[in-house]
């Protein structure tokens, strides 16, 4: 049996959708759904949820690289079989949760986790007022439009900030996210700290290929600033229809390359990383807010991106020192004022942090209220 290429439509099944979630609930979850009373984080990385039935579930949260192998998932399954009745779950932020139904089962699980790799292959943490896993995109391992790598940058940043993953020493939770280009598959635009791959060179035009691979009107329409225009060029003695780019109008968003493979943008010197900070999703205390660009460019320096790692660390630790309990990074920056934020974090302020795109005026200061910082000479 199996697929028969001679008769591709014979016996085909489609539109099944995902399996029903209930068959994957651990017994203690199934028995107590909708009955949970409260939770406590008994130590970093370990949540205890108490049910009105008296049941408890202990969830041990473990950091995961997201880019993982079949062998890794099988190892995770072995752990879940040994300790968790053969069930587990993944979180939105790419952590794994191993769940057990009594407190005395927690330590044996932790002991097992500690036996792998050098003891931190399954790092326990990612809860409370700490740093949880960095959600991220594909980068150079799979994507055709990235301006930086994803998994490598995340590994480098998490190595440096590892202690914050397994502890509760920050004023509030800090959500770091990475997207490897402006398409933002990682939706980093509402993160406490966002690491964003950016391009800085306009697209090249591959006139020799454009006729075969590109619908010119779509390429022209793809540019939000009208920088892509129709033109005629000569290729091997023949005049063909192509496009040109008004470079002064290009904001390097890369949307033209998404629509037209004959307009590649990526470049070793042109590409790098921007840092945006102060976004949040939760409605807690203050309303959701976007991340703001504070560092417009850091170079791509594989394999460990030291400039990016140090920038993220400096921002995180300056926030940790200055913010009040419960205060998210963006709320702290707004309270002290962005001029103070740049000063405290030792980030040079440039015109690149001043918005000149749509709705830019909303971000300009139209008040006499400001603080005197080193920026005022």
């Amino acid at each position, binding site marked *: 049996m*199996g*697929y028969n290429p001679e008769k*591709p439509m014979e016996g*085909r*099944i489609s539109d*099944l*959708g*995902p*399996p029903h*979630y209930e068959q*994957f609930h651990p017994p203690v979850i199934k028995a107590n*759904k909708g009955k*949970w009373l409260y939770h406590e*984080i008994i130590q970093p990385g370990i949540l205890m949820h108490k049910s009105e039935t008296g049941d408890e579930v202990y969830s041990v949260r473990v*950091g995961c*690289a*997201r*880019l993982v*192998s*079949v*062998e890794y998932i099988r190892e995770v*399954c072995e752990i879940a079989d040994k300790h968790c009745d053969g*069930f*587990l*779950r993944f979180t939105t932020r790419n952590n794994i949760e191993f769940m057990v139904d009594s407190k005395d089962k927690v330590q044996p699980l932790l002991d097992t986790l500690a036996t792998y*790799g050098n003891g931190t*292959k399954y*790092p326990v943490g990612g809860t*409370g*007022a700490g740093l949880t896993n960095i959600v991220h995109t594909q980068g*150079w*391992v*799979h*994507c*055709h*439009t990235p301006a930086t*790598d994803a998994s*490598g940058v995340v*590994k*480098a940043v998490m*190595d440096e900030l590892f202690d914050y993953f397994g502890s*509760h020493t*920050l004023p509030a939770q800090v959500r770091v996210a990475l997207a490897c280009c402006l398409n933002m598959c990682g*939706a980093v*635009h509402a993160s406490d700290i966002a690491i964003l791959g950016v391009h800085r060179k306009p697209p090249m035009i591959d006139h020799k290929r454009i006729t075969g*691979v590109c619908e010119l009107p779509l390429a022209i329409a793809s540019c939000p600033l009208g920088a892509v225009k129709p033109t005629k060029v000569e290729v091997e003695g023949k005049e063909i229809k192509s496009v040109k780019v008004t470079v002064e109008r290009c904001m390097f968003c890369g*949307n033209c*390359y998404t*629509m037209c*493979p004959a307009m*590649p943008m*990526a470049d*070793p010197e042109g*590409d790098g990383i921007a840092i945006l900070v102060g976004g949040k999703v*939760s409605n*807690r*205390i203050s309303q959701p807010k976007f991340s703001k660009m504070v560092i417009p460019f850091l170079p791509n320096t594989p*394999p460990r991106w030291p400039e990016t790692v140090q920038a993220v660390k400096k921002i995180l630790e300056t926030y940790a020192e200055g913010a009040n309990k419960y205060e998210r990074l963006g709320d702290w920056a707004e309270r002290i004022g962005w001029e103070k934020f740049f000063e405290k974090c030792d980030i040079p302020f440039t015109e690149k942090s001043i918005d000149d*795109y*749509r709705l830019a005026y909303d971000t300009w200061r139209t008040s006499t209220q400001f603080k005197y910082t080193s920026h005022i000479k």
Partner: protein
Amino acid sequence: MAKHETPLLDQLETGPWPSFVTDIKKQAETKPECWDILGILELSYKDRITHWKHGGIVGVFGYGGGIVGRYADVPEQFPGVEHFHTIRVAQPASKYYSTDNLRQLMALWEKHGSGMTNFHGSTGDIILLGTRTENLEPFFWDLTHDMGQDLGGSGSNLRTPANCLGLSRCEWSCYDTEEVCHHLTIHYQDEIHRPAFPYKFKFKFSGCPNDCVAAIARSDVSVIGTWKDEIKIDQAAVKEYVAGNYPANGGAHSGRDWGPFDLQKEVIDLCPTECMWLEGDELKIDDTECTRCMHCINVMPRALRPGDEKGATILVGAKAPILDGAQFSTLLVPFMKIEKENDFEELIDFIEKIWDYWMEEGKNRERVGETMQRVGLPNFIKIMELEPIPQMIKEPRSNPYVFWKEEEVEGGFDRDIDEFRARHQA
């Protein structure tokens, strides 16, 4: 496929965080094409640029989504990743798994693919990373026939919906996120698999305003749990928090000495609407002033709980910055019951009203949030047959440029200039 020298990637095998490089190397022992994944990635680390070609349309018969085509631009050097297509497998709601299920899927992927995965992709699917075109149909056959599972969405269609774990393991969830997510995912299989939209469309379901799946930032229809009646207070438990017997915020700040818990400073003074106070040692809340931000409940989960009359706020139009800038979803329905009893009829009607309009009027690659900006919120509200209410805005407009309609103005727009001039010399 031969092993390649990877001096740059090897440097990512040190340090405490789990190493994807070590993992890929281990997988390469049984799946030699993984050496070529490392090889091409090492080349990118050296060249500081991607080595994947643009696009490539591949898929399984009958579907227009679920598989992302990918080819190496240096196939001679790395034949094992010449084709490196991604398969998106729809994840179960809440991302709980049995090990049996995962093992079965891993066996299929070992057979048909590279052996590398993402748990999970940004939208929520299981990502199976890298296979050849000729493996797609055999994989899909086995996935559907042997496992009863299916692909997720990609392209201009409904993307695989996602939810927070909701009632399954959270005391704050105001509706059954996993049930509605599963129900709508099954209900809209056609929309997930066959692109018919102007652009992508996402639903996300969060059980409370903490919004753990980032619905308000990432989904075209954001369904975020809320309640209508009063926050439930257990005064005895409040006293336990004040006495320091229960850990504030569930113990989230345990790693640092912030001093003893201070109810006034940490809860009452941080309430954004200042609707809480103490009478003696009783905590009081004026629920008519409360905007349900969750802070007090987050800080004292044993003392405070969402009310009993639960449902969700529906917001529309979030997206990442491409192209006109990032948007959060805009509140359109302050409170909707999310009930399985009527198969979520009210929510489905709401969604389809958006689609009916957007599929007609949306431009190519225009997210519905951008359509809303283009036609304006007042028009969009009319299209959605909603009454305008102040909850839809942060503040009233500060310019006077109202698009008055002729029928709204006494006497209409049709006037006679000669009659006007008879009374007003030019």
